[in-house]
């Protein structure tokens, strides 16, 4: 048992268990940390005001919807701008130039500033409210949805409002503590739905999804990649790491998809789009849905290539490849945000949770990746990492069809140049060899001649007088016997 609780790793300070009003009694999380007495006082005060305000707000939102849409051309523009940037990212991705991190940052922070919403504590929220269209829309849909629940709907709405208020007061707490609050809230509401409000089990899940959507749309800007954490630093580290690994090929990861098949490469592009899109969602569950969509496309790609259902052995390498190819923005922040603020029942069990876990694995693998994990020698790995060479050059044939023509041409030319270079070197070396041969030959001949000359020195003997006398006089030549045969005298 103790093991179990340790595993959960929930740690609460003694002081946090006391009533928040400081009356000395123990508080209870179900009462937002107050003791029963203080809670009743607080609750009644807040209750009347809130019920009225909330339903007023709901009605007004409905009325205001049309004008709000009309007066928000600029916001619409900004949204489509974000989307065009997203498209740009997609095309950039194809050319393997991932440079849009900053754009994503600015785009979403701008969006974040717009969704400022005055919480209901303000007496007249309509005066200086700067709610974004999306937040309003989510609120409206949430209220519409709750109407189908009749009485429990109101209670659910009150609970959510209370939670948002509590969170407002807890901005100074660490992100882990805020996450803990959210998790507690999910658990409390889920139980109340089942036990107190008697919502049928099949509707509980749907209600939980809506509740998550409502509260997290509002919380997003405070708790996504908060400044108090090093999430952003980690994001940049991963981003840089993936960029440094641009040379990794599907072959090195043993990815079982063949991108030469048009349908497969189409799936790969879709999967990359999905995983990049994750960053644009605000609700954890919607982010999860992006991961799931991405995974489904991966499965399709594998199924088309291998013609059998994908196992984890196939899936994980492919997901790693997709992440490397897509370099999704703010990967760590997104993972952290989902872990902290997603409804745990969805994250821990179920298909979405499985794909999310695989994404975590993929990121962990990329962070720790080394020569061995790609079946490369350390030297090759170091050379590729330092950018000295690229394994791509050798396999320009296996370029996916969507690769930019210019890049293809460039690699072709590089190939040609390196071939020419090789030939030139060969010619030079052969010429040198020839030169050496020639020199050697001359030297050899000279030496041979010298040897022979040494062996058979040319001796010029002085002419003997006697012979000369005989020859010169030539008196009795006819009388001499015929000359002797050379054989006889040679010995």
């Amino acid at each position, binding site marked *: 048992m103790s093991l179990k*609780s340790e595993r959960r790793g929930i740690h609460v300070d003694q002081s946090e268990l006391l009533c928040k009003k400081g009356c000395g009694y123990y508080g209870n*999380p179900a009462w937002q940390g107050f003791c029963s007495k203080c809670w009743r006082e607080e609750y009644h005060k807040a209750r009347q005001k809130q019920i009225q305000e909330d339903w007023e707000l709901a009605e007004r939102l409905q009325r205001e919807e049309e004008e709000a849409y009309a007066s928000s051309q600029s916001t619409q523009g900004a949204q489509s701008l974000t989307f065009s940037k997203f498209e740009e990212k997609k095309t950039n991705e194809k050319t393997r130039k991932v440079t849009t991190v900053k754009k994503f940052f600015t785009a979403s922070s701008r969006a974040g500033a717009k969704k400022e919403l005055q919480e209901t504590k303000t007496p007249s929220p309509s005066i200086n409210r700067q709610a974004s269209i999306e937040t309003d829309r989510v609120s409206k849909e949430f209220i519409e949805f709750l109407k189908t629940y009749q009485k429990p709907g109101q209670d659910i709405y009150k609970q959510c409002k209370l939670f948002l208020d509590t969170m407002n007061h807890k901005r100074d707490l660490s992100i882990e503590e805020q996450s803990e609050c959210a*998790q507690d809230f999910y*658990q409390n509401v889920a139980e109340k739905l089942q036990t107190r409000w008697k919502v049928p089990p099949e509707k509980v899940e749907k209600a939980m999804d809506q509740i998550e959507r409502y509260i997290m749309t509002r919380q997003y800007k405070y708790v996504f990649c908060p400044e108090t954490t090093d999430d952003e630093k980690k994001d940049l580290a991963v981003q840089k790491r993936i960029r440094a690994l641009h040379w990794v090929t599907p072959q090195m990861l043993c990815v079982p998809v063949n991108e030469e098949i048009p349908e497969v490469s189409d799936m790969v592009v879709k999967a990359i789009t999905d995983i990049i899109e994750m960053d644009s969602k605000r609700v954890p569950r919607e982010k999860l849905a992006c991961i799931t969509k991405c995974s489904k496309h991966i499965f399709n790609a594998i199924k088309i290539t291998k013609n*059998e259902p994908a196992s984890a052995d196939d899936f994980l390498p492919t997901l790693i490849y997709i992440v490397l190819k897509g370099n999704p923005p703010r990967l760590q922040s997104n993972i952290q945000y989902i872990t902290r603020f997603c409804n745990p029942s969805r994250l821990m*069990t179920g298909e979405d949770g499985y794909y999310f876990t695989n994404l975590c694995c993929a990121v962990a693998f990329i962070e720790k990746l080394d020569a061995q994990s790609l079946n490369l020698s350390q030297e090759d790995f170091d050379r590729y990492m330092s950018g000295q060479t690229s394994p791509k050059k050798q396999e320009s044939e296996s370029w996916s069809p969507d690769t930019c023509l210019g890049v293809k041409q460039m690699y072709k030319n590089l190939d040609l140049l390196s071939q020419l270079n090789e030939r030139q070197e060969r010619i030079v070396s052969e010429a040198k060899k020839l030169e050496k041969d020639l020199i050697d030959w001359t030297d050899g001949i000279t030496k041979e001649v010298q040897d022979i000359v040494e062996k058979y020195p040319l001796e010029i003997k002085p002419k003997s007088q006697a012979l000369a006398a005989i020859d010169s006089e030539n008196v009795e030549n006819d009388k001499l016997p015929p000359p002797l045969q050379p054989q006889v005298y040679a010995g």
Partner: protein
Amino acid sequence: MAAGSGAAAAAGGRSFSFKVVLLGEGCVGKTSLVLRYCENKFNDKHITTLQASFLTKKLNIGGKRVNLAIWDTAGQERFHALGPIYYRDSNGAILVYDITDEDSFQKVKNWVKELRKMLGNEICLCIVGNKIDLEKERHVSVQEAETYAESVGAKHYHTSAKQNKGIEELFLDLCKRMIETAQVDERARGNGSSQSGTARRGVQIIDDEPQVQSSGGCCSSG
């Protein structure tokens, strides 16, 4: 994290949700095993499922509803270090080896060691010798495997995904054991019927007093 097995089971009262991880080297037949169990097909061209890495199965064991989520894991050596991310919060683990491959059994032993170290005795372990249709080429002796399983508190099974042998029994047995573990866990907490939210807080307080340090330290390992 928060939603462990016990919590999920306690909330529903009668129904249990279990997470089971499949571990084992590549090529030992993990995928065939689950496909046989969930789809009753082997190497079939007509397999409808798009993927075999995450499969679910609903069971009814003695009136108790069980939702089984089977998580396949990548078996390649290069992914070994990622194991803890996969098996976190799982209720059961099926460790598969190929009876014709001594190395794959060695790999199972490594997994067992790791799982016991990380998750203690809360996880139900099943060691499965697959491919018994290849009995002639057996390289791992029955005696050795069973003795080993017993020594680490795991159950040993022999299966053949090809001939559909032993698979139904394996999963049924595992579910029964997981239900038992969950119920023991529930009873140990002493408030199985009460709301798990309060139960969660209750656990914390007890845990908090004796060792503040370790509760903080352990969450990072889990």
